[in-house]
């Protein structure tokens, strides 16, 4: 998007560096090249590079386990992983016993949050895996049904309580950053397509109806970038207000769906093909929206809280100094 001068320069620097790497590598290789785990090696201090990485991952639609690592960032490898590599977090989806693990490979170990028990490691993640009967457009998220899976408590409920909020905040902000990247990708592709394809002897982008659809999409995306930037800037100075993270995640899902619909409308029938470049990012975004609270559920929760408390949250103050580039 043509808003480089509007967003925090440092963040965009990380994002563009990540994009260059994700153009060549995927999976753990991409993470190593970026130094992803170094970001939180000394605790979960400044996670801006991690969010920037996820935004780049969204726009390139490459799969890595970054989001699963980010959720547990800073918690420390032991006791989560006494035997070495960091486990991935399986983020809750819906209200059931399902979790989704980003960028999981068969060797990965998975930790999930089971309120009442604590953080638990899934004994054999592959066994808990949902196996789709038909090919999927995007295999970024692996869905596990943890009900009945053999589990081992790695962080007991008493300590897990203090970690939970941070895990949710990081998952929500990370998924939102990725959704923003996906949104950018869809919007850019659609605008590019509209500038190329001609009907009635003119490019689609010359029709005001198409221009206005794309302009609304850009407006949606702009508000998301602004709100995400504020939350990410805040994350560098301490814990992020869970209400802010929830709002960012809810907005990311809603904006993503609106922009995806525009991209499909602008692109026409060709977008409704399995192979079309829009299909995979679209289905990936749909799935990411379900992670750590879908936009539909979060919006209701936000409304309920505002109504019952009679307070419309401000989420951040100008004095935070977090608004600027």
């Amino acid at each position, binding site marked *: 998007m043509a808003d480089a001068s509007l967003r925090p320069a440092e963040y965009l620097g990380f994002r563009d560096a990540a994009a260059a790497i994700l153009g060549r590598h995927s999976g753990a290789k991409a993470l190593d090249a970026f130094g992803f785990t170094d970001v939180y090696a000394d605790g979960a201090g400044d996670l801006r590079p991690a969010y920037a990485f996820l935004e780049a991952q969204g726009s390139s639609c490459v799969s890595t386990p970054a989001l699963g690592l980010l959720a547990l960032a800073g918690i420390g490898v032991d006791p989560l992983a006494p035997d070495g590599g960091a486990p991935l977090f399986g983020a809750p989806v819906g209200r059931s016993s399902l979790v989704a693990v980003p960028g999981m490979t068969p060797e990965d170990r998975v930790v999930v949050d089971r309120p009442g028990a604590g953080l638990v490691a899934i004994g054999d993640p592959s066994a808990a895996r949902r196996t789709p009967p038909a090919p999927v457009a995007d295999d970024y998220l692996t869905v596990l049904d943890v009900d009945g899976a053999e589990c081992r408590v790695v962080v007991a409920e008493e300590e897990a309580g203090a970690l939970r909020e941070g895990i949710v905040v990081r998952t929500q902000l990370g998924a939102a950053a990725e959704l923003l990247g996906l949104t950018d990708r869809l919007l850019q592709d659609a605008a590019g397509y509209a500038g190329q394809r001609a009907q009635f002897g003119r490019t689609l982008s*010359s029709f005001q109806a198409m*221009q206005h659809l794309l302009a609304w999409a850009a*407006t949606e995306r702009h508000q998301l970038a602004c709100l995400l930037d504020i939350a990410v800037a805040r994350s560098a100075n301490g814990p992020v207000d869970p209400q802010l993270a929830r709002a960012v995640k809810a907005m990311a899902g809603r904006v993503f769906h609106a922009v995806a619909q525009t991209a499909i409308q602008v692109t026409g029938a060709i977008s409704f093909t399995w192979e079309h470049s829009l299909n995979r990012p679209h289905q990936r975004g749909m799935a990411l929206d379900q992670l750590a609270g879908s936009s539909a559920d979060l919006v209701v929760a936000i409304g309920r809280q505002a109504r019952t408390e009679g307070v419309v949250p401000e989420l951040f103050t100008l004095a935070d100094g977090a608004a600027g580039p």
Partner: protein
Amino acid sequence: MAARGPGDLSQDGDLAGFAARFRDWLTEESAVVAPLLAEHSDYDLRVDNARALRRLLCEHGWGLAGWPEEAGGLGGSILHRSVVTEELFRAGWSGPTVFEHLEIIAPTLVRFAETEFVRSVVPSFLDGSRSWSQGFSEPEAGSDLASLRTRAVRDGDDFVVNGGKIWTTWSKWAHWCLALVRTGTAEERHRGLTMIAIDLSSPGVEVHPIRQANGTDELAQVHFTDVRVPAAQLVGEVGGGWNVALYLLARERGTLSWLRHCAFRHWLTAGTEVMAEDSDRQLGAVVLQLAGVRAAAARLLSRAADGAELGPEAAFNKLLMTRTEQSLFDLLREVDGVRVALPADSPAEVLQQQEYLFSRIVTIYGGSQQMQLTTVARHVLGLRDG
């Protein structure tokens, strides 16, 4: 002893401390301030109160924070002004009136008018004793503003203005009109336009308030017949009016969204009292829209505070703020239609009805929604016609 008054207004000064000091002052002075913040359906009273509030704020320095010295201010940036605005709303305010033009017109004067002129007119704008209106639109020149026909012809040290403006908000109460006039030919379109400040008490000026659909008379038609305006009241260059207009419109579409969103929060918060569980989804959606307006406004404020040009991105703010205002009032109508749609029973209801009807037209003022979308499409996304 803790510092009193606005204190350090430097760029890296402590904005949170400034906000806290202002909050304390509001609490200490609540006996004087509270009556000025109260809601009124009577528009004249709202304007009087806003003026009195400006005077009070200026007397104590708060209303001067964020304005440069030549404007009679104490220095600081738009962030200080925005903090003051938000704290006033937090204290229960809902009727900004003249404050809005202050955010739109005064920065434009500071930026483009001769320093002498700024020194002579802006301080009385800040303290509420004199107010301004914005004369761009004409009966035949709405969205196509560059087709406007009000003419200004040079005559010695003056310009002589003939023509008329319409929809000039608050000119009923205004002393000045910042008018966009034609000094060149019609064919020159926007290149033949000039911005000039017209004293509304000059001979040849007539102001006719317009009774609006919501019962107020905020808007007016203004006629100019051989009105003499000193050339020292030019705002910007002859032929450079379009640039000045764009600068002003970026405030109206952009930075003003901070003040407006504070008002939206006020109405939405009040509305939650009559909502039930079945509106949670819709309420949540409006809360999120409001968060989007706030975030986009905050970004623009920090850019303005850094002295950056605001550019076409201000259209995003206008689109977001007006869409939010309409969804907010849609929600209020859906949860309590009787209050919004039937003859009112109290001044508070009259006010709500006024605001509801006003929310229907917000996608027109300051450049319609369609014009904003076209701006984004062409100047942000780079889409081209043909």
